[in-house]
């Protein structure tokens, strides 16, 4: 039995309605309890800001394309490197760090749970191998279905039950967490070097549209009772004028779930562009947020960009190729048979580029114009918009108009007319930030019941104590203190153990991987479907028996079972 007692903590715990109370937290064997014995180890938080461990609900840290981003970028590996020290392994990389680099830096920032944004089921084993080497965060993987042949066949047949059964089989095989759609239909079209231009275009050879894929998958998701909703990267990412596609998509979304959203729309900044060319591109954040404010069934994340060099990586292969044709730097592409695509290119976001300045402004506008912070979560689509180590700066910008004004003064002159950011007075408070960086994520991912995102009795003792005294720092003026404070916790506690202290990892990690087993009725299980098996054996290049991820890849797997169709 191990016991820990955190005293004098200034706790913000939005899920339990606690906002800045000075409290003690008792921990036994990794969970929060009512009280501990007097033998418990004591941490004096000294009235510092204490939050549930940070949760990233959309980040690219593990798996085939992330590793390819490293593989093709020795220049980035050189840009961030640390020696072996104590319990810490060598790390390399700045915007695509090695797995240990990701894990240590997230931990130093108080993050204890991560959702990998995109995992192709065929390559799931790779993602899980890297999860094991990302030891200080609990992990889960969005599983890609945007170009899944069996799904598209079932959607064409308008068979929601069958769609759900394909999803259930695939999630279990891949040890995945939820449904990810990346440019639905578009990644299949990219198999022929084509793309779709809207949600009512037809996917070549499959006679389905993105709109049909999205709406059917939303219903299948709820039929399966998955903890998370459909997680959507909309069609037309990064194209001027794409906000209309985004609005049309959002209009399709019914409200089907009382406990959480029905659609999670990711990195919406990249989907909120007006205009029709790169010359007349402008922000449509107001239009997007107006709709989101009226639709509680939608949760989005910002997809904030920050200036500097980074790597874009996504399953959206055609988008990456278009971007490559603009940048003419190096380009990697990796289409995955019967499932999805992917692409990678390095980019530099510059204050000298009006387009980049508008993108930067849109992310902030989305957050500031969304009334309910539970509906707009803080992310950079790491590393697409910026590496996650920039989150503290994003927090600073959201909390301080002065900081924004100072940044805006350095932007390209054309930016002001193209966005509404300069006029926005809103300054977010500590509670808003706690929602946007952990509580909102826990709710959106459906892991509050797993003890994530709050500090109630029974919760997993994942806690971040920041060197910030909320009673003596005015974030509007002293935003530098805010940024610094969120860069490095005083303590990061993971499942009851202090794993990071003042930015240094002090123990070996032992993370868990969450995955979902949705139990569908025997008669429609894919493993019993002769046609599914036949097509699998004909068109995949691995045998069906070798496809599912073996348990050995999840040394601390945590399966969430659902009784689907009930």
């Amino acid at each position, binding site marked *: 039995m191990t016991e820990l007692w955190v005293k004098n903590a200034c706790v913000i715990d939005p899920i339990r309605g606690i906002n800045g109370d000075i409290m003690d937290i008792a921990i036994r064997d990794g969970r929060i309890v009512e009280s501990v014995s007097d033998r418990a180890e004591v941490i004096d938080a000294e009235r510092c800001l204490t939050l549930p461990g940070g949760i990233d609900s959309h980040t690219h840290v593990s798996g085939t394309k992330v590793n390819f981003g490293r593989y093709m970028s020795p220049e980035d590996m050189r840009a961030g490197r640390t020696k072996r020290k104590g319990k810490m392994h060598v790390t390399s990389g700045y915007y695509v760090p090695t797995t240990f680099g990701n894990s240590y830096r997230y931990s130093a920032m108080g993050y204890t749970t991560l959702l990998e944004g995109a995992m192709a089921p065929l390559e799931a084993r790779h993602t899980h191998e890297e999860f094991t*080497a990302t030891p200080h965060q609990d992990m889960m993987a969005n599983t890609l279905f945007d170009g899944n042949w069996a799904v598209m066949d079932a959607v064409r047949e308008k068979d929601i039950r069958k769609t759900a059964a394909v999803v259930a089989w695939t999630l279990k095989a891949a040890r995945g967490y939820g449904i990810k759609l990346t440019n639905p239909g578009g990644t299949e079209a990219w*198999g022929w070097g084509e793309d779709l231009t809207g949600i009512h275009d037809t996917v070549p050879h499959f006679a389905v549209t993105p709109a049909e894929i999205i709406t059917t998958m939303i219903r299948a998701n709820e039929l399966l009772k998955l903890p998370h909703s459909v997680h959507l990267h909309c069609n037309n990412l990064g194209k001027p004028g794409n906000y209309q596609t985004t609005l049309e998509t959002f209009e399709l979304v019914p409200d089907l779930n009382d406990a959480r959203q029905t659609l999670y729309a990711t990195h919406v900044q990249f989907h909120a562009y007006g205009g029709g060319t790169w010359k007349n591109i402008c922000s449509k954040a107001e239009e997007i947020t107006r709709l989101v404010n009226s639709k509680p069934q939608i949760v989005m994340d910002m997809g904030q960009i920050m200036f500097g060099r980074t790597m874009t990586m996504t399953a959206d292969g055609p988008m990456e190729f278009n971007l*490559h*044709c603009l940048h003419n730097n190096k*380009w990697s*592409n990796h289409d995955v048979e019967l499932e999805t695509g992917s692409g990678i290119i390095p980019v530099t976001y510059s204050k000298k580029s009006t387009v980049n300045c508008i993108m930067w402004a849109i992310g902030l506008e989305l957050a500031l114009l969304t009334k309910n912070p539970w509906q707009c979560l803080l992310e950079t689509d790491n590393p697409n918009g910026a590496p996650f180590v920039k989150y503290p700066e994003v927090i600073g910008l959201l909390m301080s108009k002065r900081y924004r004004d100072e940044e805006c003064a350095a932007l390209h002159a054309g930016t002001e007319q193209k966005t509404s950011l300069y006029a926005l007075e809103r300054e977010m408070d500590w509670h808003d930030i706690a929602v946007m960086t952990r509580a909102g994520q826990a709710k959106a991912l459906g892991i509050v019941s797993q003890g994530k995102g709050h500090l109630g009795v029974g919760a997993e003792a994942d806690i971040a104590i920041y060197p910030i005294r909320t009673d003596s720092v005015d974030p509007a003026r002293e935003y530098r203190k805010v940024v610094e404070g969120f860069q490095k916790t005083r303590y990061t506690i993971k499942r009851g153990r202090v794993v990071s202290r003042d930015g240094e990892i002090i123990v070996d990690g032992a993370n868990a991987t969450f995955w979902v087993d949705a139990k569908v009725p025997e008669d429609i299980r894919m493993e019993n479907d002769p046609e599914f098996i036949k097509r699998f054996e004909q068109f995949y290049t*691995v045998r069906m028996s070798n496809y599912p991820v073996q348990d050995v890849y999840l040394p601390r797997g945590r399966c969430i079972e659902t009784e689907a169709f009930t």
Partner: protein
Amino acid sequence: MIERDVVCPFCGCLCDDLELETEGGKIVKVQNGCSLAESTFMNDTRLPAPIRRTETGWEDISYNEAIKETAEILRDADRPLLYGWSSTHGEAQSIGVHIAELIGAVIDNTSTVCHGPSILAIQEVGHPGCTLGQVKNRADVIIYWGANPVEAHPRHMSRYTTYATGFFVPEARRERTVIVVDTRRTDTANIADEFVQIERGGDYAVFSALRAIVRGNASVIPRKVAGVSKEQLIRIAEICKKAKFGAIFFGLGLTMSRGKYKNIRNAIELTDELNRHTKFVISPLRGHGNVYGSNEVFTWMTGYPFAVDFARGIAFYNPGETTAVDILRRGECDAALIVASDPGANFPRAAAAHLAKIPTVVIDPHVNATTALSRIHIPCTAAGIDAAGTAYRMDGVPIRLKKVIDRGYPDDAEILKKIYDLLNGGMGP
């Protein structure tokens, strides 16, 4: 007993549809496999026990003794080299990286003598590729360049490309145009629709010519480029542009000939150019069964796919300097651990000769040319035969190798873990 859907660990194809018949702990029959697979499973003669060189020959030693002495050799070394890794599973590779990090060694894999140049090119211009099933289901144009899969990857064409029945190419070979580019007429060339015979060292020029034609600048092309007629080049460029889905596979004929990584860069840039007209992909034909896995494991742990030097505490990468051949050729390293590979057979003479001068330990199931240069050889399981573990196919698809039989050998990961523990004063990685 029949074991189905067995993965062959030999080459980068990692065919996973083999049927093995075992009898009393022995493999007696291999079905579906190529001749290389059959020999991998059937001619698996192992070294019975660890051996150590003596004044006059070899002596048997215990595993404990061999492991202890290996740890001592590594501990005493100023510039140790850990090399190989490509025929074992990721679990062993991962411990190898931890050892290198712990003792400040150079760790390198067989890419250094095969597709290292491909990696350098990819690091300059990227890699437009795909999984092999995309090619199988869609490709109507297949190009093999500087590669002879009939001999080196015997089932590549039947499982993944030319003869594979795909969803959009149900008639397989009849619907496909196969182009083979090589300096000599190989067995693969004999089945091509178009054989392009290039003068030795002329690949770079031919890629440049094709790029120019694809870009609409055929007028600048001379009558012949590296022995290839302008007419044929224009015909090839047209076939490529008209393809619905084209795939280029290349081998060591491109990476290890004149031009080296520049050849690959040019090939990738041709592929890039073709993507402005249609869909095109390019992929190296990786040799060792899990060489791509060693690149993957090295990359997520250190940031670099091969040639990683931990001497300064951080991970440092500079191929040409930190590559195994160069370290050996310069006589720089003073101890070597060779795992799951045979540099004695593949390295330039000067590099191999240096292995014989320094204490070299081999961990490998089989006696090979490196054994003759080594001080200690520790036999172990063979991944995919009597040990399970992860391997990455040449296209990045991770597949779990199976343990088909038990021959009583320790897993190389287990041996390496013990060495690590000794070096780390009893603490695990």
